[in-house]
């Protein structure tokens, strides 16, 4: 049985193991155990709606596999995935991106008409809701698991729409070479940060972002002055990220004008209202019973702090009630008569 739920302190070890297995760039997730523990603590406070976290909520969800009855060999649940939501991108500090724009340089006399792409440093996305820290254990990276982890986050946002920003964004890893070098960084950031891409990336995960304000060049960048290699990767996603992009596009996301200031990777955006338009959720009362058969739905309870979301099969009718087996309901923390929220589940990715 698979379950998405808020991250607990006890998950720390499992997350550390996950991070070690992951090759993906996760600038929002430090590998340092102490900082990671702090990060989990922030998530706990955020789910508990601690007033001190107001406007800086950073939620972390885990995807947990529990063997269930049918598999008595392995009886402890195992964390196989992680996903985060920063309620306000920047978490109270400026959130940096480059915005792609074009200027036209035209001369009648010389019969020249050049469209010159330009990158503007902007804080425009500050305060948007940011999807982040997405990670699946390589051994469990199936399309079902991916879709479950991704869509449960979106269902959560749909359910608590008023707690999130009007725009939901996700930064996609940009192109890097085999030896983990970023052509975009080498042509731009490297000149100003006096460090490698990997270093900058890890600083950005470990430390406050003040160093970006201090070191990032404020003036617009003319794209033709970047190296050809850097120009080629602007707003281009890393191959490994394609499968997530397809999933997000299905849910209503599209590539926006912003790119990552470090590696030039694209940002995908979605107006929060479009989430429910694309995949509208229904809310009904649960009655114990049913046969765990029918269509597969992504079902969540209606608790913010004790959020649980799982894949459940049932037959949805015209009435106000759906029937779910008691064991499954227990997993979701739902009692007979409680409400649940659900959307039809489509597997996704490769």
């Amino acid at each position, binding site marked *: 049985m698979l379950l998405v739920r808020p991250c607990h302190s006890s998950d720390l070890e499992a997350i550390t193991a996950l991070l070690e297995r992951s090759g993906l760039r996760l600038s929002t997730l430090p590998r340092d155990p102490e900082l990671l523990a702090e990060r989990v603590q922030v998530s706990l406070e955020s789910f508990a709606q601690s007033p001190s976290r107001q406007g800086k909520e950073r939620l972390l969800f885990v995807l947990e596999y529990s063997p269930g009855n049918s598999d008595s060999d392995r009886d402890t649940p195992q964390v196989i995935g992680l996903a985060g939501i920063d309620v306000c991108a920047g978490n109270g500090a400026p959130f940096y991106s480059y915005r792609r724009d074009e200027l036209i340089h035209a*001369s009648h006399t010389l019969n020249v008409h050049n469209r010159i792409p330009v990158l503007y440093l902007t804080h425009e996305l500050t305060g948007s809701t940011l999807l982040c820290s997405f990670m699946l254990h390589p051994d469990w990276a199936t399309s079902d698991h991916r879709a479950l982890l991704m869509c449960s986050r979106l269902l959560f946002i749909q359910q608590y729409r008023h707690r999130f920003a009007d725009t939901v964004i996700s930064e996609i890893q940009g192109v890097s070479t085999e030896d983990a070098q970023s052509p975009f960084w080498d042509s731009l950031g490297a000149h100003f940060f006096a*460090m490698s891409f990997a270093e900058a990336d890890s600083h950005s995960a470990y430390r406050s972002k003040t160093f970006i304000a201090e070191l990032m060049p404020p003036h617009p960048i003319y794209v033709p002055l970047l190296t050809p290699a850097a120009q080629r990767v602007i707003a281009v996603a890393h191959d490994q990220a394609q499968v997530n992009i397809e999933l997000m596009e299905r849910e209503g996301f599209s590539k926006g004008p912003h790119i990552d200031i470090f590696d030039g990777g694209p940002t995908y955006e979605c107006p929060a209202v479009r989430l429910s338009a694309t995949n509208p959720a229904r809310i009904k009362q649960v009655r114990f019973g049913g046969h765990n058969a029918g269509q597969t739905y992504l079902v969540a309870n209606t608790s913010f702090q004790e959020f649980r979301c799982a894949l459940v099969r049932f037959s949805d009718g015209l009435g106000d009630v759906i029937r779910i087996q008691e064991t499954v309901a227990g997993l979701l923390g739902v009692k007979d008569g409680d409400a649940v929220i659900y959307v039809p589940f489509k597997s996704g990715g490769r």
Partner: protein
Amino acid sequence: MVIIRPIEPEDIEALLDMASKAGVGVTTLPPNRALLEAKIRVSVQSFSQQIPEDQAQYLFALEDVDVGRIIGVSAILARVGQQDVWYNYRVSTTVSTSRELDIHKCTPTLYLTNDMTGSTEICTLFLDPDYRHRNNGQLLSKCRFMFIDDHSNLFASKIFAEMRGVSDDQGRSPFWQALGHHFFSIDFSEADYLTGIGQKSFIAELMPKYPIYLPMLGAEAQAAVGKVHQQTRPALAMLESEGFNFNGLIDIFDGGPLVEVFVNSIRTIRDSFNRQAFIVKHVDTDVRNSAFYMVSNRSFSCFRVGLITGDAIKSDTVSLSAELAERLRVNSGDVVRLTALRDPRQRRN
């Protein structure tokens, strides 16, 4: 004997001759009769104050009076950027520090400026190759400072000169390749030519307006910033000895330096002094033991400068030969201005 005087319409043939000897690279003296005639005309009008002061362009000719022919020219533009727009890049420094990360980084940054607008340019220095003796080039260049100070109301307090930047044998400029090239869709020589003939509106239309971070242009272009072409080094050295300094402004096309000075810091002006002319038949002089001095008649429309040796200078007067006095249009008792042609100060230890 050589004498500096304003250029005259009759000098056109000699000037054309010189221009054809100048060859490529000296874009300010193209061997084009119509253009040179126009330049002479503007100069004649300037010396007779027939055009507005801020559009004046003074052309000085060096004449070998023994053969009655000009052997060099130099020019002053009273105020640049009055009709058109005068562009430079300013090499500025952007410093970024992060205490947290212990970083302190200086990034040279180019700002497009029009800061020289209204300043006075000295330019178009050309000397016939057959006359490249030690003093002629100095005289052609420095006579202009004598003129500027005696008529300082016509000029700006800041004087500058643009120096040719680095390029290879094929005329390829590394700075242009890294910057202008991306925006102009024409090549350096064409851009240079259009600017030379005064067609500059394409710069406003095509030039990038935002600051440029120099490291993004690559090592070769960076190395060329503020550097002169090898052939221009002697000219640069002479201006530096007069007090000109590179102060961060460069040419927008080839990155060559602009050197500037406040008029009150120019060596020729600072060290100049006045004497009453005392005309003698003949001045005995020992060239080997005495330094050369420029002597100017302080006139505007009949401006003349000649050379004498220092032993002719007394505490209140200066002795001029009758011939020189005539060439300078100076009468006995007139006040003339004098300056050592070269800075007499030794470098201190």
